[in-house]
């Protein structure tokens, strides 16, 4: 059974249909690529899946439960986590605080603990900190834990975002252009990290990416969208040779 199932999802921005009849069956542990030209609606699809927008039509099912219409934080705590294309970090917070914050929905000490500093809170905060250090260790940024994110180099910020996304204990990870703006060396490192979290956490991953090298190497299956509509779906080889995909990216060949 697919862990994430999307049926004929559409979304309108006023009179503009941004996503049209999008469908997806994401199996547990699968890495799925989502490619398409700029403005094709890829990020809108992510925003619809994570509850930032509510689909105009269609259904999103997580493990057989309908989740469209739920608030974004609920969907996130049910196991869909994400990173953002343009790094939405909290500028005044430290790296450790970022990762701890992503445990928000798992906190049990409540307001009494927050106001009065109960022993339960101390225990829980210590637990959260320990787990967070573990994730930072895994991302290789433990030594930066007390730095404010604004001061970090770009590659490290990407890792913070990844660690933060993993701290919510997701079953599905949506990565929105994780390699944007990276040099070839950082690119290899980030692919390594994606592989590692996929293996260690057994995550299903949905990946928006422009660099075909990354998509071809990482993904089991690829979807291509253009003008908000699915135009092709298949294995990397099939996609590479699909005339519709080539059309979308390069335009029609003008013969004669």
């Amino acid at each position, binding site marked *: 059974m697919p862990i994430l199932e999307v049926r004929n999802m559409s979304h309108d921005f006023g009179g503009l249909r941004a996503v049209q009849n999008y469908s997806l069956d994401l199996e547990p542990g699968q890495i799925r690529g989502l490619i398409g030209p700029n403005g094709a609606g890829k990020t809108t699809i992510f925003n619809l899946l*994570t*509850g*930032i927008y509510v689909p105009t039509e269609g259904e999103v099912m997580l493990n057989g439960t309908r989740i469209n219409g739920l*608030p*974004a*934080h609920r969907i*996130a*705590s049910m196991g869909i*986590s*994400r990173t*953002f294309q343009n790094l*939405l*970090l*909290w*500028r*005044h*917070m430290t790296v450790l*605080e970022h990762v*701890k*914050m*992503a*445990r*928000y*929905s*798992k*906190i049990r*000490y*409540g*307001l009494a*603990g*927050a*106001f*009065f*500093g109960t022993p339960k*809170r101390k225990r829980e*905060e210590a637990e*959260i900190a320990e787990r967070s250090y573990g994730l930072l260790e895994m991302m290789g940024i433990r030594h930066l834990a007390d730095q404010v994110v604004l001061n970090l180099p770009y590659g490290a910020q990407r890792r913070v975002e990844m660690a*933060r*996304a993993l*701290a*919510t204990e997701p079953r599905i990870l949506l990565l929105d252009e994780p390699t944007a703006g990276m040099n070839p060396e950082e690119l290899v490192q980030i692919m390594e990290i994606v592989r590692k979290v996929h293996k260690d956490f057994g995550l299903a991953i949905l990946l928006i990416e422009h660099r075909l090298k990354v998509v071809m190497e990482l993904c089991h299956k690829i979807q291509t969208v253009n003008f908000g509509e699915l135009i092709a779906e298949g294995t990397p080889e099939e996609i590479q040779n699909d005339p519709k995909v080539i059309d979308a990216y390069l335009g029609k060949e003008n013969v004669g």
Partner: protein
Amino acid sequence: MPPPAPISRTFRARCSRVPLLGWLSGALAAVVLERFVGTPLALAVGLPKIPALFGIDIMLKKPLLIPNAVLYTVLIYLLPIAAVALSTAFLTNRLAGGLMKLPVAVPVAVHLGLLYAALHFWADVSDYRSLVLKLTMIAIMLTLSLNVINGYMGEFSCSHPGFMALGAYCASVVTVGLFVDGNYFGIALLPGETGPFLFPIDLVAGGLLAAFGALFVAIPSFRTRGDYLAIISLAFLFIVKSLIENFEFVRGPRGMSGQPDLAGLPTVFSWAVLCVWSINNFVRSTVGKAMNAVRDNEMAAEAMTVDTRRTKIVAFLFAAFWAGVAGGLFAHVLRYVNPGTFGIQNLAEVLAMVYFGGLNSVYGSIVGAVSISLLGEALRPLEIFKWIIIPLLLILVMIYRPTGLIAFKDLEVATLLRPKQGPDGER
């Protein structure tokens, strides 16, 4: 042999090795000294009486007495504080180190006890000092609670005097109704001796009413931010003010008087400590840090499982609660309230304290509230020029430190109280 370090540097180095405990002991020694030899000394240096606020008021009123006032301040405050703090540094460091090994409540209680003792002796000299001190502590509560909304959560809320008014009036109605024979509510229902026991409940009730009022600002904040929320909150302030003005039950614009004398220095001090403690707890917890996440990027906060609506509601209600409690104390310190107090002027003062002291910082709020309220009192002899000097200062701070004097700094009790030298201190 290395050349001897300049005196100023060795002095500073020696000062940096004095723990907070040492400074508090020094302050206590100074104020005790003033309490007993202040008047003769003041007469001896040619001042008519003990200067109320470190001599600044005397200096401004009679510039000819400036050297005398400075001499007095040096003799009674600076010298004793420096002498006691530096000479006992070894002892206080050892003591602080020993205290830190106990549960954190013990050293905190010792320090607060010393602080209270010092404040008590200082305020004991005149009623005016006592009043200034109480109002300053109330200002700390207000500033800190406004900082929760404007600093930690980054919304611009203008309704704080409104919350304060709700707390002040609620608390006043209860105490006047229960304990005072009067022409408002008939005879006193309870004997006056029960007042001190019921007063905390009364203040909490005022705080809760203010928190309820805060719902009217918190709910619109789900959808709007920035300027629009500022306008909504300003509207709330005016609604509260004109409601009270038109409400004959609480005597409308004439104001309510006759509140029993329940807010003594110990009461106000305990509430201020409670307020600082709980707000400091809140803003350092992950639940409280969610406010920072909402401020810095709401969408990312939602995507990382943070319930942004709950965060906003909690922040507004919590802040309004403390503003309400502060309002209740304010009404019982002055023993008179009228709706005119809770207007734009009051708002401007609290906002100035928040932005002067520093956003997102408990230290900052305390510094801002203390410095602006003391400055406001000390510069009183300048009359209208006071309102040129204080805003000028604010402008300067905004130019050189746009987020305030001490912004974005957590108050860690353990760091604050730890010994500065010896086996447990940093070297």
